[in-house]
């Protein structure tokens, strides 16, 4: 970790080879990002532009999709709309321009709030538990440590749908079905395995001598942990937290099966944003765009730690 030694291949690649490599990689990057670009474009299309035949590359941008996403509307005849009092604001005007009347707010905000509460709640809990356990495994002789670590890893191998059946029944019994608490606990349990593995790696790298010195100076173990280890592990904890957050943010299957309304998050909600004639694609795309935006930011913030996170720390950069 410490050394910033550059592994430069002995023979530098020729400029032509480099140029070719760049060409291929850039082409792949552009092609692979096209679907995401299309989502962003669709968010600003009108409904008819979104399902135009053939598909439209150039279009007049509109906020219809976003208005549809946040409101509930009904289609009304022209003469009915003409009789209504004039629209109070720009979005009402926009809706009425295509014969729709806004009758209320949609539930998208609740879903987004759920995503945030469940996502952050489980992340904080998983990181907290993970830090403690990782410290325990890193610094002490735990009986059967290897087996326990493997056990922790193996919980992540369970097919989510497979464990969902008994969890569903258990949650029903305990009254945790369709509650935020239930989802937070579940995501914490899934994330904690990653958190322990990652953080153990980070904490292993903090020299023991620091704590030893603190202990000799009369600190208790807990004080040493808090005042010496935690500050050193801050980067690792932050990286772990973002990984946990990305998992709970994106998770679909558990939330689909274990919630129906109170604890529903964005992923099971977005595919069912339905308009008049089927899926309202601009609204779906608008919801998707808003939902994906934070992940973009995190990805860029996380670049350096990505590898550890996705391999459970099994590969160290």
């Amino acid at each position: 970790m410490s050394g910033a030694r550059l592994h430069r291949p002995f023979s530098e690649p020729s400029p032509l080879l480099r140029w070719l490599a760049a060409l291929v990689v850039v082409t792949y990057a552009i092609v692979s990002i096209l679907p995401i670009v299309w989502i962003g474009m669709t968010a600003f299309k009108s409904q008819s532009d979104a399902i135009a035949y053939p598909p439209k590359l150039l279009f007049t941008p509109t906020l219809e999709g976003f208005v549809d996403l946040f409101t509930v509307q009904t289609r009304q005849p022209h003469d009915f709309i003409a009789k209504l009092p004039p629209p109070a604001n720009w979005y009402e005007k926009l809706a009425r321009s295509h014969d729709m009347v806004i009758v209320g707010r949609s539930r998208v905000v609740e879903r987004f709030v759920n995503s945030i509460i469940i996502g952050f709640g489980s992340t904080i809990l998983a990181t907290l538990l993970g830090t403690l356990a990782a410290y325990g495994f890193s610094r002490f002789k735990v009986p059967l440590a290897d087996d326990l670590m493997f056990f922790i890893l193996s919980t992540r191998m369970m097919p989510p749908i497979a464990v969902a059946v008994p969890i569903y029944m258990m949650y029903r019994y305990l009254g945790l079905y369709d509650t935020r608490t239930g989802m937070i606990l579940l995501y914490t349990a899934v994330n904690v395995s990653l958190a322990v593995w990652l953080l153990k790696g980070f904490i292993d790298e903090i020299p023991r001598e620091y704590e030893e010195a603190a202990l000799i100076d009369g600190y208790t173990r807990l004080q040493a942990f808090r005042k010496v280890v935690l500050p050193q592990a801050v980067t690792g904890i932050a990286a772990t937290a973002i990984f946990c957050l990305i998992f709970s943010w994106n998770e679909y299957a558990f939330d689909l099966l274990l919630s129906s309304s109170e604890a529903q998050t964005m992923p099971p909600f977005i595919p069912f944003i339905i308009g008049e004639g089927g899926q309202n694609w601009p609204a779906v795309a608008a919801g998707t765009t808003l939902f994906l935006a934070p992940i973009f930011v995190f990805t860029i913030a996380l670049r350096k730690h990505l590898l550890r996170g996705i391999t459970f720390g099994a590969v160290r950069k």
Partner: protein
Amino acid sequence: MTGMDTTTTFADRASKRAPPRSARRVVGLSDRAVVWLFIAPTMLLLLAINIFPLIWAIRLSFTGFMANLPRPLGFVGIANYVDILTDEDLWTNFQVTAHFVFWTIALQVLIGLALALLINQKFRGHSFWTTVILLPMMLSPAVVGNFWTLLLQPQIGPFNYFIGFFTGAPASSFTMIGSVKLAPWTIVMVNTWMWTPYVMLICLAGLRSIPEFIYEAAEVDRASPWRQFWSITLPMVTPFLMLAVLFQAIQSFEMFDLVNLLTSGGPGSTTELVSITLKRAAFEKWETGYASALAVILFVTVFGAANIYVRVLNKVKQQ
């Protein structure tokens, strides 16, 4: 900030001191207590939310219980397992899953490794483009999978036009999701799109871990670049690649969200992965006992295969 200060001072002192004693007497909680205090919550949570349900599922798998009918468990012995193991249709679903797992991994490894090798040429701007390539894998498979149904619509989706532009085939002359022949490849394609960056990233780490002196030695021996690739690069990257394969195999074997939203298992049952069958049995038909048995079989398969694989991996690593 005080934390940082104490750290440095301790660090300074630590460096001046004699080697730390490992056995010591400390104020406050004993180390033993601390260990348990720190590890127990995680273990308890995992026991409650992973192990307990698993044991419960094993128990249910021997019953004809249906969670939506108010009636007793009704033990049926191994009938559910017999049902599953003799069901030809389910066998088809396993084949579909195997096809999916095999091809997504093959393609991901091939493309991922190739991209990693190219990026490792360190052309200008390579780190920016690497980040761009990583994006698909960070997104929610369900949300993105749902959107792919629009992209793949033969008439209104851009995908067919994109292909048509390069091949000259009229856009509505083929349908990626609706055709029995193409649909199994469509799910492979979208999954590969999503997860190739993952394999690429791990390969990249593998490439960067190769000490440069090995290549220097090879240069001295006048080994051709081709030979260098086969005798140095590939063997050194293999353990990393195997790790990527392990994680991706588990992931694709358990795949539910992306495919369920993309094809919902159709046309016919051509893309019905086992986890989709399981979801239907468990949460739509409410055949809880049967579904539990299937879940146990899946879990044993994943867990068993992963264990064997990890052993092989360790052997490769040692070499």
